[in-house]
């Protein structure tokens, strides 16, 4: 059996490398559209300042993009290096969107980013704008296919298990592409990226305004960021609500944990603002609740119930018991392909096969399963409530803060006197790190909330790992964290340096901080 230490280290390494990667991705996804907007204005009006804006913000975009690519390389290969059984078991489905992402999106994005930076003097204005747009389309298509893959992990549609090949196989490609979970995740995630991009430009522009330098450049950038940011903050909240709805259908466990909902409550359930969670006794010591709201978000109705954790536990326990029959039948069929009775049993219990596999964490032989082990496995199906509950609330609170900030930024932009409101500029400046926090906790809720599964209800995490030695994992984890941290420091150093230099770093002679040499 696979050691728990190996599983934990593999998870930690994936979490660390994915979360590092996602420090850079949202800014790329959002800023690329800001570049499209700025350059479009340049092409339409012919005003030089908009070209300078595209080039300067593009420079910062490039510094960020380099680390996005660096940390992204790892993720394409880590399924194979560290999650070999996962790769075998679901590669037939999961590999396809990753490969299509490369073919359809990443090639597009990466080819045109070269022309974006180097093509200014070799392309006409319209050609260059087209290049920027294609780069943006590629970036966002890339997110689409990755989230189709991720959405399938959360809600595995369009596939079935084959005992002959001992893996999940694709049955309906379009069901996987148009998986509601994946689509909701895509729009929510790219909107979060747009908020991040807008905040980045808003904050740094506010910095120039506070310093009283490069005013015209900063004012124009601030306005575009405020408008783009408000639209994005609205959509991240509305579309987040949409993903709340799909989570409600496919993954009731996740929503119950996010909401610390121990008991099934009469419909429509209330939304808890905050609560004192008592994990060991499975109850909340106190809670402050808004009536009705969760039921409306989660079921889009006033009469459908959302199941509480205790009821889910009972249901999952029954599925584990049924899963034991499925695992035993599978073993029999693997040993003797002609065993028709076992095939029939497997067919009957197929939908609970994954639940049976949960027991493999504790016993290899299904005949040694005891009621206590079943209880432990059932308890495993509920992620820890406290981190889910609070992480989710941090994300939502930040979402509403973004709405308020971009709302006032746009309001005073339209009124025309935002340049005098230093409180607004300070608020914008100090909010710079917040979208990253929101993005990271958002992913934490999505992925930690999926545990103990890699593929929800199908493949448990502890079976998914490669059979590597624990010492290899310590070595690679240390290597990744060390290397990435070093690169992150270099990146932050350059980013801060060039953000401080401002548009003068372009060497055009029109701004403060122009370099001394030509």
């Amino acid at each position, binding site marked *: 059996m696979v050691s728990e230490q190996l599983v934990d280290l593999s998870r930690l390494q994936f979490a660390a490398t994915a979360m590092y990667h996602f420090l850079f991705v949202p800014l790329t996804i959002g800023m690329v559209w800001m570049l499209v907007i700025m350059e479009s204005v340049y092409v339409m009006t012919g005003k030089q300042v908009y070209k300078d804006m595209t080039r300067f913000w593009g420079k910062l975009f490039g510094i960020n993009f380099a680390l996005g*690519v*660096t940390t992204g390389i790892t993720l394409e290969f880590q399924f194979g290096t560290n999650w070999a059984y996962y790769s075998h078991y679901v590669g037939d489905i999961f590999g*396809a969107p990753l490969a299509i992402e490369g073919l359809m999106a990443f*090639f597009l994005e990466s080819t045109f980013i070269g022309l974006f*930076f180097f093509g200014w003097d070799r392309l006409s204005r319209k050609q260059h704008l087209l290049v920027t747009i294609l780069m943006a389309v590629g970036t966002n298509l890339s997110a689409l296919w990755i989230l189709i893959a991720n959405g399938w992990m959360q809600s595995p549609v369009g596939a079935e298990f084959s005992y002959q090949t001992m893996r999940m196989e694709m049955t309906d490609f379009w069901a996987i592409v148009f998986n509601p979970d994946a689509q909701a995740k895509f729009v929510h995630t790219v909107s979060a990226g747009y908020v991040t991009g807008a905040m980045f430009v808003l904050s740094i522009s506010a910095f120039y305004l506070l310093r009283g330098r490069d005013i015209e450049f900063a004012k124009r950038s601030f306005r575009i960021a405020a408008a783009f940011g408000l639209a994005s903050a609205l959509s991240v909240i509305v579309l987040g609500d949409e993903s709340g709805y799909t989570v409600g259908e496919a993954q009731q466990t996740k929503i119950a944990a996010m909401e610390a909902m121990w008991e099934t409550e009469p419909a429509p359930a209330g939304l808890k603002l905050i609560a004192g969670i008592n994990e060991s006794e499975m109850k909340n010591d106190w809670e402050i609740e808004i009536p009705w709201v969760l039921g409306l978000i989660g079921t889009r109705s006033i009469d459908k119930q959302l199941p509480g954790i205790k009821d889910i536990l009972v249901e999952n326990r029954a599925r584990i018991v049924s899963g034991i029959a499925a695992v035993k039948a599978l073993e029999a069929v693997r040993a003797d392909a002609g065993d028709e009775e076992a095939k029939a049993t497997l067919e009957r219990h197929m939908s609970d096969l994954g639940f049976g596999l949960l027991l493999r964490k504790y016993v290899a032989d299904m005949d040694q399963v005891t009621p206590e082990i079943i209880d432990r496995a059932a308890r495993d199906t509920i992620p820890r409530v406290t981190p889910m509950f609070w992480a989710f609330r941090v994300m939502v609170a930040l979402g509403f803060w973004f709405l308020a900030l971009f709302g006032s930024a746009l309001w005073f932009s339209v009124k025309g006197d935002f340049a005098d409101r230093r409180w607004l500029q300070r608020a914008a400046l100090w909010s710079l790190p917040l979208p990253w926090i929101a993005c990271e906790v958002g992913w934490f809720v999505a992925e930690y909330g999926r545990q103990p599964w890699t593929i929800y209800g199908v493949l448990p995490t502890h079976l998914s790992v490669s059979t590597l030695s624990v010492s290899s994992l310590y070595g690679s984890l240390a290597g990744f964290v060390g290397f990435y941290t070093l690169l992150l420091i270099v990146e932050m150093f350059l980013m801060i340096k060039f953000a401080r230099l401002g548009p003068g770093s372009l060497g055009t002679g029109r701004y403060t901080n122009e370099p001394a040499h030509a």
Partner: protein
Amino acid sequence: MPIDYETLKVIWWLLVGVLLVGFAIMDGHDMGVGTLLPFVGRDDVERRVVINTVGPHWDGNQVWFITGGGAIFAAWPLVYATAFSGFYWAMLAVLWALFFRPVGFDYRSKLASPRWRSAWDWGLFVGGAVPPLIFGVAFGNLLQGVPFYFDNQLVSYYEGSFWALLNPFALLCGVVSTAMITFHGAIYLMHRTDASVHARSRTAMLAFGFLLLAGFSAAGIWLQFIPGYVISSPVVPGALPDPLAKTVVREAGAWMGNYRRVPVTVALPVLAYLATLSAMWLATRGRTLLAFVGSSLAIVGVIGTAGASMFPFVMPSSSDPRSSLTVWDSVSSHLTLTIMFFATLIFMPLIVAYTSWAYRVMSGKVTAAYIRENSHSAY
């Protein structure tokens, strides 16, 4: 489904080959440029010339690697799982070497400090030289078979160590691979530069061209004595993939069997020789663009030779031969192979088209004058 399973399995063997060759030609030439960077560029301006020959393109080229990984995941999930977890530290060495490239290209010239720039130059060298070396070593090990087996649930267990990968034959294959990629990069540099960088690239081109010819010949001779693998049970190419359903034996000289059975495949090693020699001849005569076509064809010949020798094996197992992975039993389902085939058919021509356009936009020599005029925007 419009194409039967057996045909699709063969098509996907060819397509993985196309992606590998595409990777070696496209990402290969900028890796070759990275390898040569500290040697053909003697001062900062010369080094910036070298870097900017691939500056606008390295990122798009690197996607051949990413997409190759994704395609192997989608089409040969068992190979993706078994090879990358088995070659764990080799794979990490490739990834970590590649980390130097995006940051090296983008960050190097953003600060003026000579130490900063020199550090990134060596980073780009590592990012250019290490991956081809390791890929060559990996191929050398595949040709000998690697120690792994599957249990009844198809969980793979790798029994070798990283150091065992560094055996003499595999290292020779690493030399062939590095020579091939550096040769290709040197020709690209000759095409895109002038003056002293051009002259030094010419010297490198000749040196690595001869090294490639010598290494390829030595590996070819050595291969006659290395036991190959043969499927000893009846093969049903259209069957559901199950690597444990067959038996396999090791046989001296078995890797030469395909050339006897299908004599036309001898064209591949012949192509490797002829294309390398003509690329060298063309490059010395200043026909650098044609020479680049020649070194690209040489890559087709070398990689094709390795693939044709092993067919239908992809990853033979030395410790449990029946666990060996072949094109018949390591593939995805019929549906996935079909969908991925059409996806590749649609997107690959588009990729080639817009990549060619990008190279045409940026064509011409990168000169010292260009670097001086664009010192704030060039890499």
